[in-house]
């Protein structure tokens, strides 16, 4: 606490609450959403194909899978942790699922259940290792990033796995009242995650642990349990996005979702999550994922070199985080 913060505490009412109000109306997500809308308008102006049913449906399908991965990544981020293994887990889940169907002749339901159980176990191990063994989650999940991708390549022999039942892709490309089924599925998973984070004790404890793990312990929160749940959810959402990728492409690919952990984390951060923990929302993740998907789509439509696209995305992350810090520092000065 510096001198400045102390002196104003004698009459804290007015200025603090004024700024509270401003902060209420304009969280970071609002600016990112505005930016996304701006990009949509620009693309609609510069590309005749952008604002067509086919393209919008494509964007909605693409953002669905990315957003589910980002939702999952948010849980560990809220804890001030991180899960770098979600892309590899998605890839491994796709391989296990498609091999169970194509090679082992199992039905979709059995394959689904087995894959989800494997995903949950991976997540629980991640959470347990980072909390109980005291290994930083960055390291635990970095090992997972390599290890699970390796496992996916080993199991599949590095080859894609075809022979999915046609119904799977049909589902992935289907729509309900012109809204892609994948998008509806994403909404359902998003709502579930939002509900958990915003309305349940478990969710609140995730924010509490991310804010101050010692105070969480002192009030008797079962920190290990909450951490394990968070990483299990990250892995579960990664597994689901892996399965949806298989459905969409109608095949399992061991290299699927490579590098997507960073896109997922970037979406969460651009959507207002703090890597220092305690902050972040599902809506923010969705907006972040939508912005990145839109940029990717627009770059394709306008024929922008995909290397440039990476540079643009990098600049965007740097800008948004800088902007957020700037806002916070200004706030600290005032309030």
């Amino acid at each position, binding site marked *: 606490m510096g001198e400045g*913060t102390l002196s104003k505490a004698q009459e804290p009412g007015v200025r*603090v*609450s004024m700024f*509270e109000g401003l902060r*209420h109306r304009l969280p970071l997500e609002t600016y990112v959403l505005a930016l996304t809308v701006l990009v949509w308008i620009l693309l609609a102006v510069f590309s005749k194909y952008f604002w067509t049913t086919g393209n919008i449906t494509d964007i909605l399908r693409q953002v669905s899978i990315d957003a589910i991965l980002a939702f999952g990544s948010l849980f560990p981020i809220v804890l001030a942790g991180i899960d770098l293994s979600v892309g590899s887990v998605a890839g491994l889940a796709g391989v296990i699922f498609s091999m169970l169907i194509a090679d082992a002749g199992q039905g979709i339901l059995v394959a689904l259940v087995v894959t989800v159980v494997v995903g949950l176990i991976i997540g629980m191990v991640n959470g347990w290792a980072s909390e109980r063994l005291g290994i930083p989650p960055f390291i635990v999940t970095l090992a997972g990033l390599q290890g699970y991708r390796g496992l996916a390549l080993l199991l599949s022999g590095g080859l894609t796995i075809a022979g999915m039942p046609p119904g799977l892709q049909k589902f992935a490309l289907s729509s309900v009242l012109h809204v892609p089924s994948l998008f509806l599925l994403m909404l359902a998973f998003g709502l579930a995650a939002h509900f958990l984070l915003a309305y349940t*004790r478990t969710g609140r404890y995730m924010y509490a642990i991310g804010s101050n793990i010692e105070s969480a312990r002192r009030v008797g929160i079962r920190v290990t349990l909450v951490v394990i749940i968070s990483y299990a959810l990250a892995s579960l959402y990664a597994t689901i996005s892996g399965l949806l990728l298989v459905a969409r492409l109608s095949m399992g690919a061991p290299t699927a979702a490579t590098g997507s952990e960073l896109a997922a984390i970037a979406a969460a951060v651009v959507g207002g999550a703090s890597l220092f923990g305690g902050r972040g929302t599902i809506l923010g993740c969705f907006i972040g994922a939508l912005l990145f998907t839109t940029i990717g789509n627009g770059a394709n439509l306008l024929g922008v070199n995909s290397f440039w696209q990476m540079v643009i995305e990098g600049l965007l992350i740097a800008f948004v985080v800088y902007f957020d810090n700037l806002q916070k520092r200004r706030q600290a000065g005032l309030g």
Partner: protein
Amino acid sequence: MAPLLEVEGLVKSFGPVDVLHGVDLSLAAGEVLALVGDNGAGKSTLIKHVAGVYRPDAGEIRLEGQPVRVETPGQARALGIETVYQDLALADELSVGANIFLGREPVKHLFGFLPIIDNRRIRMETDALLARIESKIPPRARSVSRLSGGQRQAVSIARALYWRAKVVIMDEPTAALAVMEREHVIGLARRLASEGVGVIYIGHNLIEILEVADRVSVMYRGRIVHMTKAEETNQQELIKYMTGFTGK
């Protein structure tokens, strides 16, 4: 009637270092007992036993006459022993209400089966509580990170008050505060005592100690060397005991 809290013959060493050599202490309901002593005298070690952070090598802790085991902070809390820590143990990103209710949120059931946090009740109770302690904390503050040091102490104290703590330990609660805020926190300590809470108050500032406390215990090298009513002592006497220059 038995005192609210009694500590008897508490012994603790960390490896080869003996920190507490058989400490006795008693605290009555509705009193502020100050604990003073130089750095390393054992004040923090002593209260961390009561708060469930450390386990004693020997000795007994009794609450309302009954021997109790206080082996975790959770157990201490369940027994009605709350600690307001020097390092402000609040979850920064959570609201005032969420902090007061952290770990004990009221729950209601959505559609009759989905347990969710009753945020409306938390807000109402928090408003009433802050009004009760006459705090100037904006009750709708979205995160306590934007509150001043004194306001954060007040949140911790309000938490203890709300949960009907029997014993509240305040570990240098004013160490990082400006003068005006210090007065407010001292007022809150007296307020707790007037509601029948037993308060153990650790501090360095003797003027403040003599203002807030009913009784003062002086620790020196792991022992309580002097116990007096606050009105029957003065700074010079306390310093003498704190530094060991008692002429003996």
